[in-house]
């Protein structure tokens, strides 16, 4: 059994929370006490139906306003898979929360209201999916019950979305017509839409092939912590604890430590608790031992010699700005890539992108909350990175404001 992490994106009235509620409810992943709680809260509703959206809106403010503000994580399991859902808000005001939820996802479900077709928000959600190189996209055309389950309406939306997908280089797109409110095509195929020949949404989620990329060529290991017991018995033990970001490491492999450039070979690999193994692969957390006594510390990246990543002091990045304070050229931040942190200055704001029209506005004065921008960064010392499109696990980063300590930006290194 493996794990599929997915995110649902839809705007305020697209029925996103209802869709998740329905998925959990119909797959029997809701307990009776949870159901009783939302039944109590649904009492004010006239039709007497329970409001499945209440299952996911976890904060008082969200229930009061009937909207999703922050990402909620939900879990369910079928005999085939464990699912982790990031239920993220779709409203433009919460773009940063959606980016947060999407950054860890293998798949995105983009909801489209069948009555409205491809809307501004659909473009924004798709742009984010594209920026983050989301491996799989499912377009769920919802509220089919309100368009009399019309195949024509559905087909037109598919044609319209396909154009957008092409523009944004989204190549793995699957379409499905649903009614979340009535559960049509959610867990079971619906008799209301006999013209739809694909699987139910749950069927798609269970069977979709997710490439948890093992990139054999690019091996990257981020050092987090050095284990040195310093006891009599383990006097010389010095293990580099960290996470294999990508690739496979084997005993005897030749390695280079970056950014220093020191070289050695792997003497031993341990998995949890000091168990020795001959090989380990991403995303395992392991401890590496080197044959030579070289200087390695937190923030270093250990790579196999067959492919050495770039190290540079000037980076071009796509940035999702997440702070209320504006981004200005000349501002200084900390750039964190995995376990490395380095001081960085914004050299230039090349353009900002209108997330709804996808138009570029060159050389804007500043960046504002939820803007997608292209910027150039200069760092205090060389940073080791891959281009996000080649290797997302070593091509993303965050910007931290050193005065507020807040995470203010998501970086996608070009």
């Amino acid at each position, binding site marked *: 059994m493996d794990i599929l992490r997915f995110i649902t994106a839809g705007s305020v009235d697209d029925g996103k929370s209802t869709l998740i509620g329905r998925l959990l409810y119909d797959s029997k992943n809701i307990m009776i006490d*949870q159901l009783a709680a939302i039944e109590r809260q649904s009492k004010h509703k006239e039709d007497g139906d329970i409001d499945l959206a209440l299952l996911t809106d976890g904060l*008082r403010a969200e*229930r009061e306003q009937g909207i999703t503000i922050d990402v909620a994580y939900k*879990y369910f399991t079928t005999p085939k898979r464990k699912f982790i859902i990031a239920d993220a808000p779709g409203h433009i005001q919460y773009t940063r929360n959606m980016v947060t939820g999407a*950054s860890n996802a293998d798949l995105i479900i983009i909801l489209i209201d069948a009555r409205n077709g491809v809307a501004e928000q659909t473009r924004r959600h798709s742009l984010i999916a594209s920026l983050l190189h989301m491996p799989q996209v499912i377009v769920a055309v919802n509220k089919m019950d309100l368009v009399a389950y019309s195949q024509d309406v559905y087909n037109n939306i598919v044609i319209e979305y396909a154009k957008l997908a092409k523009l944004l280089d989204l190549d793995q797109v699957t379409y499905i017509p649903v009614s979340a409110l009535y559960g049509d095509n959610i867990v079971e195929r619906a008799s209301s839409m006999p013209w739809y020949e694909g699987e139910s949404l749950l069927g798609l989620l269970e069977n979709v092939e997710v490439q948890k990329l093992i990139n054999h060529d690019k091996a990257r290991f981020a050092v987090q912590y050095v*284990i040195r017991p310093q006891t009599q018995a383990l006097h010389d033990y010095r293990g580099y*604890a960290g996470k294999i970001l990508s690739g496979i490491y084997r005993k005897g492999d030749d390695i280079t430590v970056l950014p220093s450039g020191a070289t050695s070979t792997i003497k031993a690999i341990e998995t949890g608790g000091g168990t020795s193994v001959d090989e380990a692969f991403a995303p395992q957390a392991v401890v590496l031992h080197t044959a030579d006594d070289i200087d390695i510390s937190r923030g270093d990246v250990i790579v196999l010699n067959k492919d050495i990543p770039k190290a540079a002091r000037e980076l071009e990045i796509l940035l999702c700005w997440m702070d209320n304070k504006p981004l200005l050229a000349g501002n200084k931040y900390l750039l964190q890539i995995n376990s490395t942190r380095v001081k960085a200055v914004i050299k230039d704001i090349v353009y900002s992108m209108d997330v709804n029209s996808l138009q570029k506005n060159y050389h804007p004065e500043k960046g504002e909350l939820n803007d997608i921008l292209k910027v150039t960064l200069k760092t205090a010392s060389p940073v080791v990175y891959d281009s996000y499109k080649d290797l997302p696990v070593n091509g993303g980063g965050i910007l*931290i404001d050193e005065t507020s*300590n807040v*995470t203010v930006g998501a970086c996608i290194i070009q």
Partner: protein
Amino acid sequence: MSTYRLDYLDELESEAIHIFREVAGQFEKPALLFSGGKDSITLVHLALKAFRPGKFPFPLVHIDTGHNFPEALLFRDELVKQIDEKLIVRCVEDTIRTKQLTEQKGKFASRNQLQTYTLLDTIQEFGFDACIGGARRDEEKARAKERIFSVRDEFGQWEPKRQRPELWNMYNGKIHKGENVRVFPISNWTELDIWNYIRREKIALPSIYFSHDREVLEYEGQYVAVSDFIRIDETDVIATRKVRYRTVGDMTCTAAVLSDASTVEDIISEIITTKTSERGETRIDDRFSEAAMEDRKKNGYF
């Protein structure tokens, strides 16, 4: 290529170990909050995987409400001895006395809320900048919203609207003096994942997780252990039942479930077929209001 793929339990384990090591790498003075329940016992097991053969870069901290199950305390002390790590215990009883706090009244008067005072005092006493806890997002809907690195202000308060974006697997633990971060390495685990992991790793647990005879009083469909900490009224029906605990909290606010499950295998089959959630079935303290957990977290709770 397809052989290089992690099973879901391995993926969860690897994620948790990575989080533990980020704590070790980013903080000066972390602590692991240990309650004696299965989730914090799993945390200890994961910490062993993250740091052995080295020592933990943090002590275990137990906030003792004085209302614990004796079996859980016994287990705690044996575990600490076995792994040879440091344990710090601070008692809610002492905080009540020195700060002259008012205890809850009523039949199941609980110290659940008061333990926040002891926790915050302990954080201040030792200058802890990160507290690792065993909360899971599937437990409760406010928890479903919390980040893995959750920044708390100097009053320990969680501010859900001001949470930092948490991107990819990169954690930002930078804080100002006086603030602390609550870190939840098993955020993405469900109750069933925990039990499957306990089975796979053969992790030992306190005996009260398994079926045993216990004197309980039945109250609004829940079974509460008879102890000195609850008020027994004349009308109460007390009986000895075969029960086990699905969660281990205080004796005053944790209910037992009727069960014959005497092995981990039995428990797993029981959980798979159960119709009620973990907290719904066993936690008396969550029933107060729709936002009970959200409110407690805003006040500095775990």
